[in-house]
């Protein structure tokens, strides 16, 4: 390409135009020495870098087009951000800082939280109430979240604000003298997928530890303690390949992660400790969930299962799959006799009717479905394909299952396998056993409720079911198994939305600081 050369007067002429290639050739011809070689080397390097850049651009563009298919928010700048993030610059650092800032804000909130953090006028029992139940709560007007301790009169004893919505609440088993601990811990799991869980003191609600997930791990909402209370097992997700993980955390060392096992499925959700003390029972929901949108990515091909693992080395002992591959095994409760009760969330076609509450015992080849009475007209559709939580009263052989979408809680008798009672409770989810030491003194065995159910409208409802009897106390049926039952519900209200899970604490005396 000809270039123009401007003369000393600034004039430009055709004569002054030279071909750059001729010029280059002239230079090469004039100086065949080291500087010539250097020039050649530079030329080759520039060409190489140019070609490499074009090639990189083409490859990244092709990858970006692929990403766009599943992530509409994907941007070309993500690649540069990613590199900056990897080498320690950019908004990754800002995120880390914000976590610290969040913690600091949280601490301040906690220190000031003798009064309500959720801006609600909650009656808090400051005089050392006895915590009976613990639940996650939300103030939906301000979008704030907390955990509350509740006493036997269903009043709030303490509340601890947390920076995100929480899910399961685990109470450390009361063998504390063995591990040299003063009071029981409460493990509070962030809502799936979360990067945090918190350990609170059960009696005061004070935060003892705040645990962060490792790189490439998200917490999946549930955990369980070993029966000795010295180890916490947490359901986690490997964010790189979506495989389910069970994280093992040592209580004595401040909940350091000491190991992890494969959960042998995708999307592990609830985990419970088997009564044998050596076996973990895991609900592998089977659903691959995109983090940002919570969109379910593998509904057609999902493979849920119930997995039994040796808690000491993670060996898979037994794995059971439901009859329909879209019956997501999600929530569990453990009967003292070793029966696992399972709450299903069905992801298949809405018109299909599948059993939503199942049972299983080690060694059985398949699940057993609980049953609806023949006289019932609503069937399993009453739950709208969604069970939020399950609780077992081993003493009375009863199970309670909740469905916020169906707006009901139902009680099943494990002796007959039949549903024996149902109550309408809009937005209900948390359920736990009602049994409590101090209240039992006030209530006769016959009059005590079996379950406590919490809901998003702020109600704590006790449920008691019993077989109908005549004035002599005789069951009104020739067939005792088929005798009708009556359900009694008593509600109290708090100005919160109670979250998905509720747990029962054996007597712990409050000591607010």
């Amino acid at each position, binding site marked *: 390409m000809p270039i123009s050369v401007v003369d000393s007067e600034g004039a430009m002429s055709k004569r002054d135009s030279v071909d750059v290639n001729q010029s280059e050739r002239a230079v090469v011809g004039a100086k065949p020495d080291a500087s010539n070689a250097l020039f050649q080397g530079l030329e080759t390097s520039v*060409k*190489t*870098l*140019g*070609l*490499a*850049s074009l*090639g*990189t651009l083409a*490859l*990244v563009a092709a*990858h970006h087009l692929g*990403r766009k298919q599943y*992530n*509409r*928010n*994907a*941007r070309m700048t*993500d*690649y540069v*951000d*990613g*590199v900056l*993030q990897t080498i320690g610059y950019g*908004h990754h650092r800002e*995120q880390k800082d914000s976590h610290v800032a969040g913690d600091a804000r949280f601490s301040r909130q906690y220190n000031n939280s003798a009064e309500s953090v959720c801006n609600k006028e909650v009656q808090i029992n400051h005089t050392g109430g006895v915590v009976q139940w613990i639940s996650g709560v939300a103030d*939906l*007007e301000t*979008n704030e979240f907390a955990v509350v301790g509740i006493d036997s009169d269903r009043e709030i004893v303490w509340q601890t604000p947390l920076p995100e919505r929480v*899910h399961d609440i685990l109470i450390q088993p009361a063998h504390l003298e063995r591990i040299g601990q003063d009071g029981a811990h409460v493990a509070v799991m962030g809502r*799936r997928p979360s990067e945090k869980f918190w350990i609170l003191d059960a009696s005061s609600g004070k935060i003892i530890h705040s645990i962060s997930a490792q790189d490439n791990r998200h917490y999946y*909402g549930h955990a369980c303690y070993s029966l000795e209370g010295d180890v916490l097992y947490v359901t986690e997700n490997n*964010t790189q390949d979506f495989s389910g993980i069970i994280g093992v955390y040592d209580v004595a060392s401040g909940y350091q992660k000491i190991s992890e096992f494969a959960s042998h499925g995708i999307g592990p959700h609830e985990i419970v400790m088997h009564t044998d003390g050596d076996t973990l029972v895991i609900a592998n929901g089977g659903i691959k969930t995109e*983090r*940002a949108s919570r*969109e379910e990515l593998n509904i057609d091909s999902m493979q849920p299962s119930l997995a039994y693992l040796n808690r000491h080395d993670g060996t898979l002992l037994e794995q059971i799959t439901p009859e329909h591959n879209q019956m997501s095994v*999600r929530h569990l409760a453990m009967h003292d006799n070793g029966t696992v009760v399972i709450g299903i969330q069905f992801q298949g*076609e*809405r*018109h299909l009717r599948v059993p939503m509450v199942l049972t299983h015992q080690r060694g059985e080849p398949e699940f057993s479905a609980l049953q609806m009475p023949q006289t019932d*007209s*609503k*069937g399993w*559709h*009453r739950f*709208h*394909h969604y069970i*939020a939580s399950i609780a077992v009263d081993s003493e009375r052989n009863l199970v309670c299952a909740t469905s*916020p*979408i169906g*707006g009901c809680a139902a009680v099943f008798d494990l002796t007959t396998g039949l549903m024996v009672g149902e109550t309408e409770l*809009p*937005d*209900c*989810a948390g359920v736990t056993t009602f049994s409590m030491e101090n209240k039992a003194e006030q209530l006769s065995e016959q009059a005590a409720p079996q379950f406590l159910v919490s809901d*998003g*409208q*702020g109600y704590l409802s006790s449920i008691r079911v019993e077989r109908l009897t005549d004035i002599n106390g005789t069951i009104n049926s020739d067939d005792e198994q088929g005798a009708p039952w009556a359900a009694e519900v008593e509600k109290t209200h708090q100005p919160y939305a109670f*979250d*998905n899970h509720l747990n029962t604490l054996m007597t712990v005396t409050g000591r607010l600081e």
Partner: protein
Amino acid sequence: MKKHQLAAMVLSALSAGILIGCSKPAEEAQNTANEQEVDSATANPQDVKPLTGVQAVDASSATVESYLNQVAQTHIVPAYKDVAQQSQALNTLAKESCQADGTINSEKLAELRAQWLTLATAWANAEVVNFGPAMDSMNNLYINYYPDERGLVHQGVIDVIDANPKLTAEQLAAESAVVQGIPGLEEVLFANESLSAGQCQYVMSASAALTERLNKAASAWETSPETLLGIGGAENKIGINRWINSVLSLIETTKSNSLDQPLGITGNKKGHLPADAAGQSRAIISAKVSALNVALTDPALVAILAENNQEAVANEMSELLADSTRLLAEMPEDIAKASPEQQKALYEKLTTLTQVIKHQLMPVLGVQVGFNSTDGD
């Protein structure tokens, strides 16, 4: 191949690998940021005025009870009666049309299609009530199996007619929800230019089975509105929670199932528009917006808001609904043919309406938005 070309290839592969590998954490961070943005947008929507010192109304008051009675008597009961009557009208018309030789020509078919649309819009109007006998135990699937994400209705109806051309209403009622109700009727009436004897029989049976189902719901509402809605004393709190959450739910499901997913407004396309086979999506969505308008501009509700110095909330909801109605009127009958800008504008109006309801109306009424029922965990 020259050495520098080979080197360029290697360098390209390496640098692209590094960039692609590093993009993953950035994606996650961005996703987190998006999530946070969504949350903060929900909590503090720019176009929603912040609440200052709002005191919730006393749910046990006579005013609230009067409002709930009005909701039951002027909205819910008439809506169910109307849809049951329209279903009966379709059944009567089908019987008349099929009388001669058991088939229906294109002229009669046009009349049936028009009556079907009246029925479908009546049901869209009644869908503002998302609780009670028509909704219990997923009964609504037998009335309106929508959205039919896997396209089950089309083949299901063909199969059920082929299997039994003399299908009775009782036999059909025992079949799957997929082959019943409004979508089943739409499939037969709009996928054919004339009806065979078997199809004619199906229309008579399906409309009869639907009428019976709707009559039961209408009758239950007429008999016990207090129990079904929750009216009287402490029940008022439950009743007002149910009703306002139900209104909110209609907006959210309309946004999600009837606009966002089928049109791909915020993500990939999924599902289908309501009354897709009939090409009448605008009529169905308009009926829903009309039901929302009746519910949210109810004089008794406006009076409660005025008593609490919240006339602005009533005005804002009214304006948003008027804007939505206008946007719909400007669209073609099949809103898939509307411009993306029109579709998005309607979606955004309804989004703003949900924010006004959640952050302004509900606090004034002391109503808690559904929490666990939308959790998905």
